């Protein structure tokens, strides 16, 4: 029996009729075995309300063969419940928790069936932010520390509850949901595609280009249209600039947290230079308005190409000076090395993605494993890999990726003369009816996955967004176990996960 529809990240959207509707038990038995191999991981898993119940969709990525496996099922969950996949593969935990929170679907044997984000449309309205069921341990020697939801710095809200034995963290639990804005609901409430693009840009404002690219690629697949190689190239420059800016910002933030002012201020200045480059291109420091479906309002000109190349060359040169000095700074290394370890096996079991996974020697990089856009053309991306899985590895991955991305920008632009005029955005192209479309984009944090299901008229009936943070928050909780609580800030910065991207 066929369990999956097999496709790729460059193929067009899939007709719903082509996605097999299977028995949950068969899918469960297959995934139990399949996901034991870390070449596979879950990219998305969600339910859609249909007449008389729910239809579940599951998207699995095969990194070795660059294939995407899609399956669906319509179970009789009210009477029997579903056997939890989280019990075997913890990477399912946020997905099953979300489905449980929204629809009350019971998952038997789920070890941690807690609310995920307290969505406004959750099933159990009695369950509120204030009553989050934090894990606790009895013991006279232990104490608990609560941080948040409002943090000391100018950052987004989220609650962290530590259980400590003296200075040592035994357990950290992260309660999120404070940032919940109803993003996925707003995506379908109004079919204005400019509005949808802006919502995508606001999913996580520090990844505006990443999420807008995911939205644009998804729409282009549904519209059955391809974009020109030049437009793909310009989008790639944009997303690599975003990666450079944020990795530099995090290098500076890590330096701040150990009081290393020189690196902090150098990185602040370099990030300013990077985002001002983006601003001089499209008018916004975060690249909002840069990415639009099927076209662009900000095509590159010869002058802008020169400006970007000069700035990026200078940023690379100066950043490399900081990088070389960091690698020789004993006080910094003493804090970052062997701190906040996440071993490869653990990273794989929680479904870790992006630069955090690569720092734990887990090769997860959509640009290499499921390339789309310009990465799928004559662009062989080789991911930066680090093996220690500590704070230093996560910093080194960032540092190497800044140089790599700067080289990519140079490579993409030095051989580029904008020849034909790039088209203006198209917000009205008809979309394939009764179809499922997904997009996978490697943002600076990692794998962004957007999924849309259209109705019989070609309107978007269901829109699901996954920021890489959804997978990686658990990685942070694991990293700080048995570390001193004073090392929490550097661990937190080494991941720098999104609150709004998680809470949606």
């Amino acid at each position, binding site marked *: 029996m066929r369990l999956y529809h097999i496709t790729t990240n460059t193929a067009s959207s899939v007709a719903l009729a082509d996605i097999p509707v299977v028995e949950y038990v068969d899918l469960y038995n297959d995934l139990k075995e399949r996901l034991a191999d870390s070449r596979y991981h879950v990219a998305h898993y969600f339910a859609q309300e249909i007449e008389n119940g729910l239809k579940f969709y599951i998207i699995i990525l095969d990194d070795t063969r660059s294939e995407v496996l899609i399956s669906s099922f319509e179970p009789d969950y009210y009477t029997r419940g579903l056997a939890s996949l989280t019990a075997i593969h913890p990477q399912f935990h946020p997905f099953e928790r979300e489905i449980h929170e929204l629809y009350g679907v019971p998952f038997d044997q789920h070890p941690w069936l807690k609310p995920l984000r307290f*969505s*406004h*449309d959750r099933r159990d309205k009695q369950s509120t*932010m*204030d009553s989050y069921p934090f894990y606790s341990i009895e013991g006279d020697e232990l104490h608990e520390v609560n941080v948040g*939801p*409002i943090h*000391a*710095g*100018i*950052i*987004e*809200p989220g609650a962290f509850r530590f259980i400590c034995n003296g200075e040592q963290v035994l357990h950290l639990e992260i309660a999120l949901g*404070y*940032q*919940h*804005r*109803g993003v996925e*609901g707003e995506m379908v*409430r109004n079919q*204005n595609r*400019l*509005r949808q693009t*802006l*919502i995508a840009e*606001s*999913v*996580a*404002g*520090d990844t505006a280009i990443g999420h807008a690219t995911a939205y644009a690629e998804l729409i282009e697949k549904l519209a059955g249209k391809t974009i020109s190689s030049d437009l793909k190239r310009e989008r790639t420059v944009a997303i690599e600039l975003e990666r450079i800016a944020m990795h530099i*910002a995090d290098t500076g933030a890590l330096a701040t947290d150990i009081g290393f002012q*020189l*690196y902090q*201020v*150098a990185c*602040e*200045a370099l990030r*300013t230079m990077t985002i*001002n480059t983006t*601003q001089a291109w*499209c*008018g*916004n*420091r*975060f690249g*909002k*308005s840069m990415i639009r479906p099927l076209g662009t*309002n900000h095509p590159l000109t010869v002058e802008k190409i020169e400006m970007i190349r000069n700035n990026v060359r200078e940023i690379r*040169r*100066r950043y490399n*000076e*900081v990088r*070389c*000095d960091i690698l020789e700074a004993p006080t910094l290394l003493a804090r970052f090395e062997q701190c906040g370890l996440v071993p490869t096996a653990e990273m794989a079991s929680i479904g870790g993605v992006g630069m955090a996974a690569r720092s734990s020697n887990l090769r997860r990089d959509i640009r290499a494993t499921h390339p789309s856009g310009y990465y799928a053309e004559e662009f062989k991306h080789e991911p930066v890999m680090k093996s220690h899985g500590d704070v230093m590895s996560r910093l080194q991955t960032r540092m190497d990726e800044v140089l790599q991305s700067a080289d990519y920008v140079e490579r993409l632009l030095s051989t580029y003369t904008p020849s034909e005029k790039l088209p*203006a955005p198209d*917000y009205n192209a008809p979309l394939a009816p009764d179809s499922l479309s997904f997009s996978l984009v490697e943002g600076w944090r990692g794998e962004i996955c957007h999924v849309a299901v259209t109705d019989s008229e070609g309107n978007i009936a269901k829109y699901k967004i996954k920021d890489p943070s959804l997978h990686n928050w658990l990685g942070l909780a694991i990293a700080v176990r048995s570390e001193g609580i004073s090392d929490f800030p550097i661990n937190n910065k080494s991941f720098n996960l*999104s*609150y*709004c991207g998680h*809470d949606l």
Partner: protein
Amino acid sequence: MIFGKAKILRSHGWQYIPDLKNVTLTEEFRGFPILTDTTDKSDVERAAAICPTGAITTSPLTLDMGKCLFCGECAKCAPKNIRFTNNYRMAATKREDLVVKVGQTEPTFDRSAIRPEIAKFFGKALQLREVSAAGDASIEMELGATGNVNFDFGRYGVGFTASPRHADGLVLTGPISRNMAEALDICYNAIAEPKILVVCGSEAVSGGLYSDSPAVDRSFLDRYRVDLWLPGAPTHPMCFIDGIMRLREKK
């Protein structure tokens, strides 16, 4: 090692903007819009129809900067009617002053709406507590940038504190998610009087894309007086710096 540090210092030189009152942003930056009326309304009608936050009215032609996300699409639809300038001085002391009218060449900043105690108490030092209530992180990063090595707003005695108990006012970002509404209220009330309230970013000013979302609760803004409204998505650090400086000026 010491060579490495000297090299970094030499490469970077002085980074701060010498005069924060005299800054010009790149031409590409979309700030204060200038509106022009035409007899043919078809372009502005298309612009108003596509505007993601309904910031544009066509008769009379107005653009509400408190709703605008500065995506620039309306200026593409109606280039004869709407033009974004690089003027970042968009702060307003009254919400209605953010609505731009035809022929207006400068943003409205009504000094008469500023409470006299602001200059008296906060003219020399102003410490703020930022609360993000579903802000998308870009705006929080811009507020963080106001204190960085380039903008260095600290030289004017303005900074951000960790505790509301140490703060002279609150800066609100984000459309105010229902899940943050209570924490925001508690934080505001933990700040001693006299205090100021700054609403930063179009999403905070009007709710932006989320103004009708069932997941937001904006009743906080009905209960408390706002001293400064700052548009933008996100608000540019210079817009924030300029607004705060003018709010604190002695008359």
